[in-house]
C-alpha cells in the first residue's frame, strides 16, 4: 500500500497549484461573477497549452493520455481557488462522455478540438420536478424517420450559454434514455444563466422541436441509462476531488489566521477551543482526501468503485460543511463580509455537495450496497 503521490502526480499537483494561484486566484470568482461568460478565455487557452483539457484524452486524439488520477489532481488544485469556468463541464463531463461513447468519427472530430481548448461542452441532465439521479426525465427525443427531434427543459446546465455542444439526456425514442449533442445555436434552443449560490454559470436550457442530426447521437439510442449512471458516478467523484481542494484551502487559511490573529494579548490559535476546531478539520480534510484518492485510484485502475465513490461523496460532503463552517467560526465577523474571500469556499463546498448527489443520496446508495434488504 502506498498512499503517497508518485513523482509525476506530485508534479501535476504542484504545477497546477502554481498556475492557478497566479492565473486565477480565488478573487477571480468575485471578478467573474458578473461577467457574462464567467471565465477568462486567455486563461482557458493557457490551460490548453499545459494540456489540461486533454488530460484524459488518449494521445492518438492529441490528448495527454493521462488517467483519472491525473484529472483528479487538477480538480483538487482548482478546488483550492474555487475555480469556476468551463473546465469541469468540458473535461470531466463532456470529454469523458465522448471518450467513452463516441464513434471513431466523433472522437477524431471532437477530441483534438477539446485538447486544443477550442470546444466547450456541457451536460444537461436535471429537470424541474426531478431529483438527483436519472429518474423522472421528461425531455423527449422522437424519431421522425429522417432525423431526431428534441423537446423539453433542463436545469443546472453548467456553461450552456457558452457551449459548443450541450450533451442532452432525453427519454426515447421509445423506452430508455438517449444522449444527443445539441448545438445551442440550433433553432428552438434557448439558454439563460441562473442566479446560483456559488456563482458558476448554471443555466436553464429549453428545447422546442430541435432537430438533431443522426451524426450527433452519442452512444446507442435508448440504451444509455447504465452508461449515464457510470458518468454520474465519475462526475460525483470528480466533485469529491474538487471538494478536497476547497476544504484544504479553507483549512490552511484558518490555521494561518489562528496563528496571526491576536486577542487577549495572544494568538487565538493558542486557545484550546480553536486548536480543537483545527484538529477536527485535520481529520475531516485528511479523511476526505484519503477516501477520495482511494476511489480515484480504483477508477484509474479500472476496478469497480461504485461503493467507494458513494462513501467518498457522502463523507466529503459532510466534511466540507463542517470544515467551511469552522473556518468562518475561526475567522469571526470579517468572514461574513463579501470582500473577504472565505465565503466562496463555503459556497463552493455546498455546491459541490449538491452536484451529482448530495450526502443523503450517496448514503442511500451506500446503504443499497450494504445489502440491508
Amino acid at each position: 500500500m502506498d498512499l503517497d503521490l508518485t513523482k509525476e502526480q506530485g508534479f501535476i499537483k504542484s504545477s497546477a497549484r502554481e498556475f492557478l494561484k497566479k492565473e486565477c486566484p480565488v478573487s477571480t470568482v468575485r471578478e467573474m461573477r458578473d461577467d457574462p461568460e464567467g471565465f477568462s478565455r486567455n486563461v482557458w487557452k493557457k490551460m490548453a497549452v499545459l494540456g489540461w483539457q486533454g488530460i484524459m484524452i488518449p494521445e492518438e486524439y492529441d490528448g495527454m493520455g493521462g488517467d483519472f488520477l491525473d484529472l483528479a489532481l487538477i480538480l483538487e488544485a482548482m478546488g483550492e481557488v474555487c475555480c469556476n469556468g468551463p473546465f469541469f463541464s468540458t473535461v470531466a463531463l463532456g470529454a469523458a462522455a465522448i471518450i467513452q461513447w463516441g464513434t471513431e468519427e466523433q472522437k477524431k472530430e471532437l477530441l483534438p478540438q477539446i485538447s486544443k481548448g477550442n470546444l466547450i461542452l456541457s451536460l444537461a441532465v436535471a429537470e424541474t420536478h426531478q431529483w438527483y439521479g436519472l429518474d423522472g426525465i421528461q425531455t423527449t427525443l422522437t424519431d421522425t424517420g429522417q432525423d431526431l427531434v428534441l423537446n423539453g427543459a433542463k436545469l443546472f446546465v453548467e456553461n450552456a450559454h457558452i457551449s459548443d455542444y450541450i450533451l442532452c439526456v432525453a427519454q426515447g425514442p421509445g423506452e430508455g434514455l438517449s444522449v444527443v449533442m445539441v448545438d445551442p445555436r440550433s433553432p428552438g434552443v434557448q439558454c439563460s444563466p441562473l442566479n446560483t449560490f456559488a456563482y458558476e454559470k448554471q443555466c436553464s436550457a429549453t428545447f422546442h422541436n430541435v432537430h438533431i442530426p443522426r451524426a450527433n447521437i452519442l452512444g446507442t439510442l435508448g440504451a444509455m441509462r447504465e452508461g449515464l449512471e457510470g458518468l454520474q458516478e465519475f462526475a460525483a467523484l470528480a466533485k469529491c476531488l474538487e471538494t478536497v481542494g476547497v476544504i484544504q484551502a479553507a483549512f490552511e487559511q484558518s490555521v494561518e489566521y489562528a496563528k496571526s490573529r491576536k486577542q487577549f494579548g495572544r494568538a487565538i490559535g493558542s486557545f484550546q477551543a480553536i486548536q480543537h476546531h483545527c484538529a477536527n478539520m485535520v481529520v475531516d480534510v485528511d479523511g476526505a482526501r484519503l477516501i477520495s484518492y482511494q476511489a480515484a485510484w480504483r477508477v484509474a485502475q479500472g476496478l469497480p468503485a461504485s461503493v467507494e465513490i458513494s462513501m467518498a461523496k457522502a463523507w466529503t460532503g459532510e466534511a466540507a460543511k463542517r470544515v467551511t463552517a469552522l473556518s468562518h467560526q475561526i475567522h469571526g465577523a470579517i468572514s461574513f463580509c463579501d470582500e473577504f474571500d472565505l465565503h466562496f469556499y463555503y459556497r463552493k463546498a455546498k455546491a459541490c455537495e449538491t452536484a451529482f448527489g448530495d450526502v443523503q443520496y450517496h448514503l442511500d446508495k451506500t446503504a443499497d450496497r450494504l445489502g440491508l434488504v
Partner: protein
Amino acid sequence: MEFQFTEKELAFRAELEEFIKSALPPDWQERARSWPGGYGAMEYDSEQDRKDAESFKQKMVDEGWFTVSWPKEYGGRGLSNMEQAIYFERTSYYRAPSLNIATAIMGPTILQIGTEENKEDWVPGIAKGEIEMWLGYSEPDAGSDLASIRTTAVREGDEYVLNGQKIWSSLAHASNYGWVIARTDPDGHRHRSVSIIVVDNNTPGVAIRPLINIIGVHSFNEVFFDNVRVPARNLIGQENMGFYYLMTALDFERLIVNIGAFKHGLEMLCGYVKRTERGGKPLGADPHVRRKLAEIAARVEIAYLFYWRTATLLDQGKIPSVESSALKLVTTELSRMLANASMEILGPYSMLMDPAQGAPMNGMAPRGYLDCISATIGAGTSEIQRNIIATRGLGLPSK
C-alpha cells in the same frame, strides 16, 4: 499511489486468517463481547471463555504466531509494519483473544532499548506467553498529565524501593508483572527523572485492589506500592530515561486500535437489520436506519485509511505521532457512534442485556454503549489527541 496489498502481504493475510479460523472455538463469535475501541471488556465473562482464550494463546505460541512481529533472531518473522497492521486487523476482526501487551509493547520495547540483562530476564518469558505485564502509567493525580507522577523509586544498594499508587491498571490482577514508571530523581526535570521498572506482583508491599467498571467487569485495578523492594536489574534501560522509553513503547501501540472490530461491529449491526422486520416492513428499508448504517460504513472506511496510513508511515521510518493521534481520535469517536446507532436501531430492545432473555445481538449494544465511554478517555483522551494534532501537527502556539 497504490491502495492494495502486495502479493506477499496477501499471502501472509491468508495464512494468518487460516490459523485464526482453525484455532478459535467455532462458537467464539457468539461469545466474544468486546466492543471496538472500548477498554472495559478485556476480562472474560466465564471460566470457559478464559480457558478458550488461554488455549488460543498457547496455539499461537506453539505455531509461531505469538511473537510473529518480533525480529527473526528472537523467534519472530521480522514483519513490516504493514504486515503487523494486517495482523492486528485480522485478529481484531475475528475478536481473537490475542492482544497481549507484553508481546505487543513491552517485548519489542525491551528489544529496542533494553540492556542485555533486560533481554535475558524478560524476553524469553514474554515470548512463551509466561510473562504477562500490566501498564503502570496513570496515577490518581497523573492522568492526561502523565509527567506529574508521584510514585517514587529510591535506589538502595542492589534494590529500588517503590512507594506510591497506580490506577486504571488494566488486568493487573491477571498479569504477573507491572511495567511501572516511577520517579527516580526527585529534583530532576519533569521528563528526565522517571524510570521504567518491572515489578513482580508477588513482591511484599504490592497491593492490588479491583475497580469494577460500569459494565460490571473487573478490568481495572488500583495498585499500591508500600516499600516494595525490587532488584535493581529490573530497571529497564538506563535510569531517568523512562519518558523516552515510554515514547518508544508508544510507537508499538500505534496500530493497536482494534481496527478490525469496527468492521465486525458494522457487519453485526447490518446482519441484525437484514434479519429484522418492523411494522411488517424490512428494517433495512427504513431511511433513518439506512442513513445511520451508511454513515458508519463511510466512517469505518475512513478509519481504515487512517490506519493503513499510519502503517505506511512507520514503514517509511517516520514517526506518525500526529497521524496516529488522528487514528485514535477517529476510531474512538466511531466506537461511540457505532454504539449510539446500535442503541437507536434496537430501540426498546436495546435495554435487554442478557442474550438468554432475548437481547438482540448477544446483548452487545448496551454493553457497547457503556464500554464506548472508555474509548475516548483511555490511552490519551480525545482532547489530548486534538492537542497533539494542533500543536505538533499544525504548529499552533501553546501560549
